[in-house]
């Protein structure tokens, strides 16, 4: 069963990655993510790994490219402004089909913003923040335990699809402490890495590259990537539900906000309002089929986020006009208050009965 210890979300992220065999970390400090690096700098060398604080985020992501090319399990992490700096490298990683784990402990933006929790990097994460046509798998933990578990899952998925995987967290999840069960062994999935650059002894050299000057060749590469993304969409999905069986009003929320809305559902139910909650724990691919299915039984849906309304667009695409989809959000580090969300829900219920 392993042991249960009190950990910060950021520490759990680092520990999970190490347990899953990550032995190469390259990063650059930024609040509220720095505990990931602090924790790994202490523990990774003891487990035979390399911790390297690069001179910049851009260096760090390109070091990730190097270690991933060699077939190693590798990770970087940062917070919003630092993640923006890594976007060029991320596009190269996808183009070269390299697996890696990227942690984003989101803070308030745009620009330098502040260090409070936010979810304003949703678009950047799920729609492809770098150049070119691509997707990365995006996991959205809601607890410190999931920071640990999803790090393991992310490294497995990255190898499975030869694609970067992002853990999209926020300052509050990174800084808070909760008990985390560290199992004695985690499931490490082994995938073929015969493509890796390992010295070419007794075999023809491999090439890891995202440069295809010939248009036909690049189009074919793109088609291959798109087929892979389609395969991911068909095979991977992760969400949870709370009191949805008879829900007439469906909340959709991810990450920290899903915990707040979980409490709002209880407040609403105590007043006889049949509210339910769907929590996407994978943001790409998005649980669109399940949302569409639940929409059939609901009067309306409401997305609650710490941004100006980003995931709500994907909820609307899933619902495809069959039900109203409302939005409530806070920006710049503001966290939605339970009673305020409940009021918002009630105002739409009243508005609908007029």
């Amino acid at each position: 069963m392993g042991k249960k210890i009190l950990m910060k979300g950021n520490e759990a992220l680092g520990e999970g990655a190490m347990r899953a065999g990550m032995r190469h970390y390259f990063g650059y400090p930024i609040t509220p993510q720095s505990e990931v690096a602090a924790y790994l700098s202490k523990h990774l060398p003891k487990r035979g790994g390399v911790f390297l604080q690069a001179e910049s985020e851009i260096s760090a992501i390109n070091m990730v490219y190097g270690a991933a090319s060699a077939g190693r399990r590798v990770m970087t992490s940062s917070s919003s402004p630092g993640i923006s700096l890594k976007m060029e490298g991320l596009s190269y990683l996808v183009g070269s089909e390299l697996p890696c784990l990227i942690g984003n402990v989101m803070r308030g933006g745009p620009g330098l913003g502040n260090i409070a929790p936010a979810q304003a990097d949703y678009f950047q994460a799920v729609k492809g923040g770098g150049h070119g046509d691509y997707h990365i798998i995006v996991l959205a933990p809601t607890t410190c335990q999931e920071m640990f578990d999803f790090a393991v899952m992310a490294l497995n998925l990255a190898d499975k699809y030869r694609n970067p995987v992002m853990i999209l967290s926020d300052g509050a999840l990174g800084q808070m402490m909760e008990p985390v069960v560290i199992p004695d062994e985690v499931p490490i999935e082994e995938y073929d890495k015969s493509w890796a650059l390992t010295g070419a002894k007794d075999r023809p050299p491999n090439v890891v590259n995202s440069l295809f000057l010939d248009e036909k060749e690049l189009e074919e590469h793109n088609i291959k990537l798109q087929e892979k993304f389609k395969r991911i969409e068909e095979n991977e999905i992760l969400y949870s539900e709370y009191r949805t069986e008879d829900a007439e009003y469906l909340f959709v929320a991810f990450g920290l906000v899903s915990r707040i809305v979980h409490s709002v559902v209880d407040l609403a139910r105590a007043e006889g309002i049949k509210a339910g909650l769907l929590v996407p724990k994978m943001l790409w691919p998005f649980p669109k089929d399940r949302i569409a299915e639940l929409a059939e039984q609901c009067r309306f849906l409401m997305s609650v986020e710490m941004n100006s309304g980003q995931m709500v667009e994907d909820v609307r695409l899933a619902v495809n006009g069959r039900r109203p989809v409302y939005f409530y959000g806070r920006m710049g580090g503001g966290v939605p208050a339970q009673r305020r969300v409940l009021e918002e829900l009630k105002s739409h219920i009243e508005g609908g009965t007029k």
Partner: protein
Amino acid sequence: MADKVGTVEFIIAGFGGQGVLFIGRALAFAGLARDVNVSFIPSYGPEMRGGTANCKVVVSDGEVGSPIVEEPDVLIAMNRPSLERFVNTVKPGGTVFVNSSLIENEVERGDIKAYRVPFNELAREAGAERVANLAALGAYVASQDFFTLEDMEGAVKEMVKGKRVELMEANLKALRAGYDFVRNLA
């Protein structure tokens, strides 16, 4: 000693340096040891470099919903700005612990229970004024029947293992002093 805690939500607030995060972490460690669910979230903004600091703790038999406590069952106010900022957020029927060494104001709400305890004086008598936070933790323990003094002693020993050992005795003395003070009010 009760074996169920229900759900108790805390806000613990004071000046940076008064050890309010320590109180919160001790509650979380004690909760973990008693095998209930806990969450602890500190204020981590620029405020922790001077000014006010606070943390939010939830202890529950069930799943912890929002870790961001908005309406606490228990408020521990180590200084006056903290009392003023949070006292009106306490749930009706809740409890507030006021550090009467530094706060002259009375709690004017009639629907919550207020304990005025001179945490700094109790700590000074225990050997070090800087362990006033432990007196506050002890005062809380005396007000309820889930956590025992032994739970908290265990948590404190676990947390300061190898660090600041010279304060250990004062820590434990202050914890007991806060506990006894509130017990003697009853």
